[in-house]
């Protein structure tokens, strides 16, 4: 092959490449983005998609929102990324939940990080903890279970989808505390996610599962499980109307699991305000209510500074709780 022809071809390719590159760059003029600090398929993924699909359906964003994944360090990798690298990106929100607040309280994101490092944007929904047993379990209400725990803490096998120090464990530990039992004397089994724990409950390997309320709807409908208590402030409506709260049974345990978002610390006030208004507007549309219910979430509407102070207060409460249940000094 003569050299000139291969050179000419190369030049042609280079021009083609340059044009394509310019085109691609224009096409990517910064669509809004939501980072799910986990692998695809988990709760954070769904939290991002809730915003992405909701905002798109309600025409609150011009371009579809991109969902990207940044697993690692139970969310710490994304937290580092947003506080360090993309700290002022006005088009970036990151999915978060009660779990992130708990991890911050336990310094699991590293000692150098606190809840003050990001701007908490708002929450679009909430689920509540639930105390679940099989339909054929001997305990008819929370009181009976607690009595059994009080008498002999190791007589009841409790399982859930998280390690010591996780949300699921905190629910169990708070229950133990309400029954005047040292959380360390429980029999607690940590599974990899709520699904495996639920399977273990159905297969009679564990007796009590400290899960999430809305997650359990299919099994509740089919009558396989009995929910002894919802860890919410008040009774929930609809299919959950018959489930008493722990509080009304005399045990002061609450565990809301909010699903929300944060932004980088140096995002401008305008951008922060615009996003918080956008989410507030979204939460008020009818189409979003359907979407939220489908995702198994109850309404929660806290945005902007209101949400920011809510999360920071929660982190402080959790630090206090962690000391009380013996997790930290």
């Amino acid at each position, binding site marked *: 092959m003569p050299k000139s022809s291969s050179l000419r071809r190369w030049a042609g390719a280079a021009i083609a490449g340059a044009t394509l590159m310019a085109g691609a760059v224009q096409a990517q003029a910064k669509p809004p983005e939501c980072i799910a600090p986990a692998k695809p398929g988990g709760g954070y*993924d*769904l939290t991002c*998609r809730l915003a992405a699909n909701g905002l798109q359906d309600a025409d609150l964003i011009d371009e579809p929102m991109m969902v990207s994944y940044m*697993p*690692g360090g139970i969310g710490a990798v994304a937290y580092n990324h947003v506080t360090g690298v993309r700290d002022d990106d006005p088009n970036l929100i990151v999915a978060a939940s009660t779990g992130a607040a708990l991890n911050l309280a336990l310094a699991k*994101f590293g000692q150098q990080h606190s809840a003050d490092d990001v701007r908490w944007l708002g929450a679009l929904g909430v689920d509540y903890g639930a105390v679940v047993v099989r339909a054929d379990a001997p305990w008819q209400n929370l009181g009976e279970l607690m009595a059994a725990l009080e008498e002999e803490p190791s007589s009841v096998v409790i399982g859930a989808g998280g*390690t010591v120090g996780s949300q699921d464990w905190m629910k169990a530990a708070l229950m133990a505390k309400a029954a005047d039992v040292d959380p360390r004397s429980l029999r607690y089994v940590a599974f990899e996610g709520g699904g*495996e724990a639920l399977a273990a409950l*159905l297969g009679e390997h564990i007796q009590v599962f400290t899960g999430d309320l809305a997650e359990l709807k*299919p099994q509740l409908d089919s009558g396989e499980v009995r929910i002894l208590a919802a860890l919410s402030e008040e009774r929930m409506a609809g299919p959950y109307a018959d489930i008493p709260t722990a509080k009304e049974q005399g045990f002061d345990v609450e565990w809301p699991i909010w699903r929300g978002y944060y932004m980088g610390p140096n995002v401008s006030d305008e951008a922060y305000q615009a996003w918080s208004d956008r989410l507030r507007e979204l939460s008020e549309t009818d189409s979003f209510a359907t979407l939220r219910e489908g995702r198994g979430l109850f309404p929660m509407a806290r945005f902007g500074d209101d949400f920011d102070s809510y999360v920071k207060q929660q982190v402080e409460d959790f630090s206090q709780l962690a000391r009380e249940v013996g997790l930290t000094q």
Partner: protein
Amino acid sequence: MFDFLIDGFGVALTPLNLGLAFLGALLGTLFGALPGIGPINGIAILMPLAYTLGLPAESALILLAGIYTGSEYGGRMSSILLNVPGDAGAVMTTLDGHPLAKKGLAGPALGLSAVSSFIGATVAIIGLTLFAPLLAAVAVKFGPAEFFALMIFAFASMSAMMGKDPVKTLIGAVLGVLISTVGVDSGTGVLRFTFDMPELYDGIDFVVMIIGLFAVSEILLMLEHAFRHDAEGEMAPIGRVMVKLSEVLYCKWSILRSSVIGFVIGILPGTGASVASAVAYTTEKRLTDHDNSFGTGNMRGLAAPEAANNASAAGSFVPMLTLGIPGSGTTAILLGALMLYNINPGPMMFREQPVVVGGLIASLYIGNVVLLLLNLPLAGVFARVLQVPRWLLVPSVAILAFVGVYQLHSDLMAIYLMLVIGVFGYLLRKFGFSLAPVVLGFVLGGLMEENLRRALSISGGDVAILWQSALSVGLWIAAALVVLLPLAAGRLKAKLMEKAA
């Protein structure tokens, strides 16, 4: 009682849904063929598209299920052609698939694996249709103690892979298990071997691990072969392209046995295609490998893991559809997709959403036929990847490795980690280690530790729980048999030989 399935075929055979099944199969094959971009990412990437297009629930599910099954087909391609597994279930496929390609039989290898995949998936889908609710009830009987016994059985099966260098096989497995201990301890939340790097808290990601071990080390080895101009790196010229019927028939029992093994293991929540293909491969090696040719390009050694990983993919739909519990990472994300459509998979789904369930199962049948028809004639085309000159092929492998890891993690640390693991993999291969025991140790070791500790937390420390159920006793006996029987058989054979002489 099969009304839902007849209705389902009615749904799946509409032109739109048929087209989506085809599109899903095609895209899935492509996603699976690219190392690192497996079914989970394929579905995550296309889920917003399905939603944006406003597809109804059953259509979206058909598209996504097509991607899932398609990528299980596609995952084998890079295993066979490049010795780089496309996803977790395709690791065992490299063992005999790549040697076949080296012999110039890439075409028949791809064809045979397509047929095995088809049979595996079909057996599993029939199982799913007939016994789903029944099987779900058995699957939950698998508690931590039974899983621990299953892992013991799986490790015992691995003894078949000891080969000529048992010490290095064992060292490889131990290293694999050690790597699985990195990260937050699932029982106590303690950080192990993370060295204050948050990127390591969640443990070493499987994709980063196999891409590093296989793809990066392969690049270095290819460079070595090219530099030395030695024959080891050379491929025999591509011979015939189509698989022969006699070759399929030669493997028929291996395929059927592996299909059943894959399906059963796929049903259990928490174990997936990687465990299924490993158990199928080692079982077949033990049963049929009389001349010790597994690992050198034995057709059965290729057919077994391929049938098993596709069967397990279909099997993992059982707990998802009947219990609402995902059996694998991929079904977890399908579950999420359903929830976006206000459908809660679970015990009531067969009754409340028969159209969705029927349409999904019907689309699995159709998708598999589509995939077989797509893959058989294309085997010859894909085999030509081997004719791509090295200087183009190697940068392509590098690009795929980088893009695969980057789009999964959006984080550079993961890429650096992949490179470090790549050097580690290269050194292991230079020292004469096989990578399969490392990967199996990694997959099985983590499950073994977690389940042992869960079982003991349930019993409060009493080890008797490990052999209290009939299921676990059965698995312990099976584990003992797979280790002892070959020894006994060997003795017997020697005695007979003596007598004959």
